[in-house]
């Protein structure tokens, strides 16, 4: 029973950590920012037709300048870290389920 609880707690912890990592990415990547895009991507003129490209999964918020260059605003480690934490949560969940199955089998 203790093993199940340990893996379940680890699952929850990893999920919370993944959520925190994602929210930090939202914050640091100016995804919630209402300021003018030209202030956020200051330095060069923006591409007129596509001044930005963005996605929620994987999290991305990218400046696109008229000279063809780009810059990702979401820190590079956010997506790998979030993915790793989600995988960890999944593994912990599987281990929790397996532990529960074994206990149930042993009881029988």
């Amino acid at each position, binding site marked *: 029973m203790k093993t199940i609880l340990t893996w379940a707690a680890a699952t929850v912890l990893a999920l919370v950590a993944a959520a925190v990592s994602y929210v930090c990415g939202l914050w640091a990547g100016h995804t919630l920012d*209402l300021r*003018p*895009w*030209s202030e956020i991507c200051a330095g060069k003129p*923006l591409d007129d037709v*596509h001044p*930005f490209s*963005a996605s929620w999964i994987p999290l991305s*918020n990218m400046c696109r300048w008229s000279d063809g260059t780009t810059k990702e605003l979401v820190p590079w480690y956010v997506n790998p870290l979030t993915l790793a934490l989600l995988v960890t949560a999944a593994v912990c969940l599987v281990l929790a389920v397996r532990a529960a199955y074994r206990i149930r089998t042993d009881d029988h």
Partner: protein
Amino acid sequence: MDQMVLEAQQWVNATYGSVVGYSKVTEDGATGWSTMYALTRALQHELGIATLSNSFGPTTLAALQSRGGITLDEKNQNLVKIIQSALFCKGYAAGGINGSFNLPTQLAVTSLMSNAGLGDALHGVVQPKVMKALLTMDAYVVVAGGKQSVRSVQQWLNGHYIGRANFFVIPCDGIFSRDVQKALYLAIQYELGMTDSQATGAFGPGTQAGLQAHLLSQGATGVFVNIFSAAVVFNQVVLPDDSVYSAFTSTFDGGLAAAVNAFQSFSELPVNGTADFATWCELLVSTGDASRPGTAFDCVTTITSDRAKALTAAGYRVVGRYLDEPANSTLHKKIQPGELLTIFMNGLKVFPISQYYGGQVSYFTYTQGYQDALGAHNAATGYGFDIGTVIYFAVDYDATQADIDSNIVPYFQGIVAGLASQGKKYIHGVYGSRNVCQQVTLRTYARWSFVSGMSTGFSGNMGFALPSNWSFNQVQTLTVGSGTGAIEIDKDIAKPGTDPAVSSVNDPGNPVNDFIAYIGALYQLAVNYKGTRNPNQLVLEYLRHADYDNMQWQKLIGDVDQGFTSYVDSHDITLVKVSTVKDPFYGIDLHVSHLGAAANGVLLLGKPSGTATNRGDVAGWGGDWMTFYGEWRRDSASYSSGATYCQERLAKLSAIGTFKLRDLTEDADGYLIAMRVLGGENIVDVVQDHYTKGYLTRFQQFFQGRFGGTAANAKAIAGDMLTSDRDALIVAGRTYLIETTGGIPTLDPSMLPSDKLDEFCQGFADMLLAKVGEENSKAKALMAKLRAAGRM
């Protein structure tokens, strides 16, 4: 009313009321100069001085010095009571007014000394200079509008130089002032090795020659770096990230070099990041290095062809000339017939100045301003100056802060009303000292400042930084040319990128026409595009798409039709595209993308009912208001009162701040345009009408339309914008804006004590009311008055 101040006033009146030369102070419990003067006279009486005076001058100081100050074992209880009374008046708890130099009194004196940078050791005596400081209204803690960085320098100056004979305790209130600037001059002179009699506190030739030997660059250390960085701190240098330089340091590090670069760029000096002679001068005196070359000038003499050629050959490109002069004037200083043509044909440009008199305070009244504006308008129209030309109205004397408050600002309010009554064809600028320019800009939105820097001794120039909107700085009188080409001029340093001056007249072009044409072209494309969205909406989406279409904006008010964006760009709109439009009222550049976002938000989400707010508001004024809240909390150490912060920072022309006049104007215009489009009008017609006549009453319409026309409503709506939790997306955006502006952690508005938030929101409502008042009431009232008097 302060009970202890009242007690002090009662005691000093009761004790000295019958002394010849003593003037009784009003017993009201309010501290002020009159109480300090009464205590000063009381001190003089106790020291045996026969002729009493308000001034704590050399005689009082010498009398105190001769008795070695006031020691802890002072037998004369009245002297101790004077100290205790002064301490209470300055806000220090002295234990009571009992004549006993007890521990609370000692602690109060040491607390004051510590705040003034004089250390916290009394050494058994109140020194004469500390006594002098006690009997002033100077503060030794940061006051509203003050900065801790400035206070640190003030404390350092006191601590370092109090031992010199002619150096007295300066305030440590965080405010750069004339006395503080003089103290800095003294510090330089002391460090240059001048004796007490040589150090006069004036920036004369000896001081300038001494500084030539102390040119500094990155890596330098020592006391001259201290003094140099102090001067940089005093000049409130704005760094590229919009923060103000604040590091008082003895090491010339990279941060100081970056600030010097910013200052040199702002002041139109060669940018090299070093403390060269020109930079020292520019930091310390309103002319800067007066011998540096200028490209502009102003004069009272007619520009003839020979003179124009001589001036052009000497490198001058812009001339300031007078529009008019009083009917009885014999100066002939105004532009003469044919002169403008001569100026333009010789490659010069011109900026118009209006000065009928302007040499003393009594001249400056609201009515006079109104009449001078009418005169300037008529004269400028007669010469053919075009719409949008900035006219500099002159204040040609050393106006004090009191003069500015009582007369100069009302005079300029009259000018604003007068120009508005003529359709706001021309925009007002200001000529005067640094302080006049700053205050007139802050309170009447003068577009550009023409600074009378040459008057270095003006109280309005010493202790004030160059105004952020300076366009010309008058620095030196000289003669250019010879023979028939000779002319005496006042040389001006011109700031590129500000007032472009006028290179032709009678040009019917209107900068707003370009914007109207752009909207017309976009609307035609939107109709031709045949998309699913309304053409009016497509136009607004295109206006905002580059700046306001990221993920958060898409969630907030919806996305932009990318197909239309591509369609417009494939039709080569670049020829008519405008990103800024010059506002015909204030002459400021409005950002088309922000205007489009504000309008798009209102168009899509409409106006919420009652005192509620919605995402449409966030797209306009609400987003700016949230950011401004973060800014206030960031600066709350200097601005405890939200109302004061609003009064000084909200919707101003200043280069510093997030919610400038430009933002508010864009928000108001966006709202008004969108509401009319929602009412069924075509956006091209609406924009044309708005920028032809609607802008004259934009804030009145905005206040009525969005805020119900009452201050109570405006306050409640402003409060809802900061505290409402109905919409999670608004809460997330608000939190982000506040925390990233104020710095983590910044107190959420809902966590703030309600009276403080109320005061802040009242500041927003007051600002709107002030804007409405500026546009409307005074002009109407005065026009009615003038009509009644038969003068119109």
